[in-house]
């Protein structure tokens, strides 16, 4: 079962991430029993069905618009953002917007090429769930990776998870 880090704990989540392969359409793709994380297009096409079913999350690609989910945020328990490559940093801005601009409070999960060396930045941008690709880390490595979340303990700047910059947070000696 895929493992992920949620709120700094290692947990399991059986819900698969649904990807539209070539030839499949949002309207017709079969949805797994027991929930899944579906692409934005599926959510937009089959909102009511998914809501009735429960246990669904939606994932966004880097070039998609978080605003498209703005009206649905209260109904979504999980939004995932896909990192096609770990060096593709668009997801950091999408996460920031979902949290800071649109006030999303549910689970925000990083999926795709998610590596421990980006954990600190991901968490500061508002991700509370980190799901490295299956098989990328052994159980021991994933446990060790938890440490990376705290790489920087007192960051300088504002981010979704750090509402004030250092100069407002603490009194700095001249």
């Amino acid at each position: 079962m895929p493992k992920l880090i949620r709120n700094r704990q290692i947990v399991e989540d059986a819900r698969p991430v649904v990807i539209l392969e070539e030839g499949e359409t949002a309207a017709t793709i079969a949805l797994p029993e027991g929930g899944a994380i579906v692409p934005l297009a599926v959510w937009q096409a089959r909102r009511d069905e998914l809501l009735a079913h429960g246990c669904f999350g939606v994932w966004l690609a880097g070039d998609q618009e978080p605003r498209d989910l703005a009206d649905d945020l209260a109904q979504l328990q999980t939004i995932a953002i896909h990192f096609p490559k770990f060096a593709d940093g668009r997801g950091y801005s999408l996460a920031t917007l979902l949290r800071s601009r649109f006030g999303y409070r549910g689970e925000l999960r990083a999926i795709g090429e998610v590596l421990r060396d980006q954990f600190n930045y991901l968490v500061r941008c508002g991700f509370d769930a980190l799901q490295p690709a299956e098989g990328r880390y052994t159980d021991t490595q994933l446990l060790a990776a938890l440490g990376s979340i705290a790489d920087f303990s007192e960051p300088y700047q504002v981010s979704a998870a750090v509402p004030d910059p250092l100069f407002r947070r603490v009194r700095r000696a001249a």
Partner: protein
Amino acid sequence: MYRYDTYDQRIIDERVAQFRDQTRRYLAGELSDDEFRPLRLQNGLYIQRHAPMLRVAIPYGLLSSRQLRKLAEIARRYDHGYGHFTTRQNIQYNWPKLEDVPEILAELATVQMHAIQTSGNCIRNITSDPFAGVAGDERIDPRPWCEILRQWSTFHPEFAYLPRKFKIAVNGADHDRAVIQAHDIGLELVRNDAGETGFRVLVGGGLGRTPIIGEQIADFVPWRDILTYCEAILRVYNRFGRRDNMYKARIKILVKALGIDAFREQVEAEWVHLRGGPSTLTEVELERVAAHFIDPDYVTLPGDDLGHRRHLAESKAYAAWVKRNVRAHKQPGYAIVTLSTKHAKVAPGDVTAEQMVHIAEWADAWSFGELRITHEQNVVLADVRQSDLYALWQQAREAGLASPNIGLLTDIIACPGGDFCNLANAKSIPIANAIQARFDDLDYLHDIGGIEINISGCMNACGHHHVGHIGILGVDKNGAEFYQVTLGGSQGNNTTLGKVIGPSFGAADMPDVITQIIETYVAERNEDERFIDTVRRTGIEPFKTRVYADRQPNRKVANA
């Protein structure tokens, strides 16, 4: 200069620990090459021709003597006894071992230094005016702003994986010595009609493969809002900059594609949400940072030192050095000294560990223990009493740091090029040295006056060839090293890009080509006309005609 508090120190100490663990995991095979690459680049570490190259940050070019001594120690212990100052005011070591880098970073952290974000697709070291705080034409001291921006950009979690590198420069003087028009964001400190401090903001400048002069996006952003405004620019870029083609990934391409007006609209739409938010700067923070940059304890001196005057009259060599390498200081009786790293025997910007130690001693004795690195790859002692200049000159001469050539033809800017850099098409350093050797007649050099030659070993333009009065670009011609020459580039308030004069030349031809260009200038110039002004007035034709007169053009012009 800025001194770390416990928070600053903790952040760089945590960085050392992080990179130590990353290096360990890489060497243990837990991190792939691809996964490790951005991590090491964001710590300034390249894998180069001979060995890794480590680029250490010198934030906006400022160093203390203590820091320079540490750089010398690192050069001796981990390198071949020298370092290379870059056009972005940083220092590079060409020979460290990968396994040693965590230890080098730990050493640097003991003197409040680091290699953070000196490479990679992130916000790079902020650059500025090497004469900040001492120049007579300064309106507003840029250094506190550079430091505020340094802190804001250090490990900014949203902007660590941008489409491409991102460079910010700040200028606060009438004359722009920070080349702000050639930066992703160029910030010019200004006052509005009400006397409030703010920034004129340029965006989308940059050299490289597609050189573009930055355009104005805002004529006045109040100082409190500068971080939120930069954040808005960066967010638009991070989301919409191209990631499919690294040659089209700089912000300049996005700005060009959208047009400055549409780009501005997007930034403003983003800024509406950020403006006034918690990133808004406070008086308290500005004062805290600015307190680190108050004037040192200058003593009251006569504007004109008699001993200095006498030496000027008695020694032609001293007078020549003062003329080129010493500038007026805002404080009477003080002077700004530029130590030249340029002569025919060394690579431009190279300084040995011994020289570093000397410079540190001079800084302690004569310049309040501080120094600066310039975009032109030289070293500045910014607060020297006129009465100490002669002693400094004598020692600098002994140490090989007193070439009286600042701003002259032999003060060549050059990137490391093919001797060190993997990306190079051709070598840069031997070309610089050959030209310097050709123009070794000081009287002639002074007669032809201010001429800037910039050399890059490839399109990446680390040697800023586009903005050299004479630009030299290494090109690859069927596997052989050739050089393309541009004329008429310039940096400063009216930055211009040079024009290619024609087909490229072999390395052996380059000193002749430069000689012919200079002879053409001497023949064409009006009285007292500077080289760049002659080129602007006549265009490149006369130069082209002369240079190609006895050469057979054998190739179509590349990138004309």
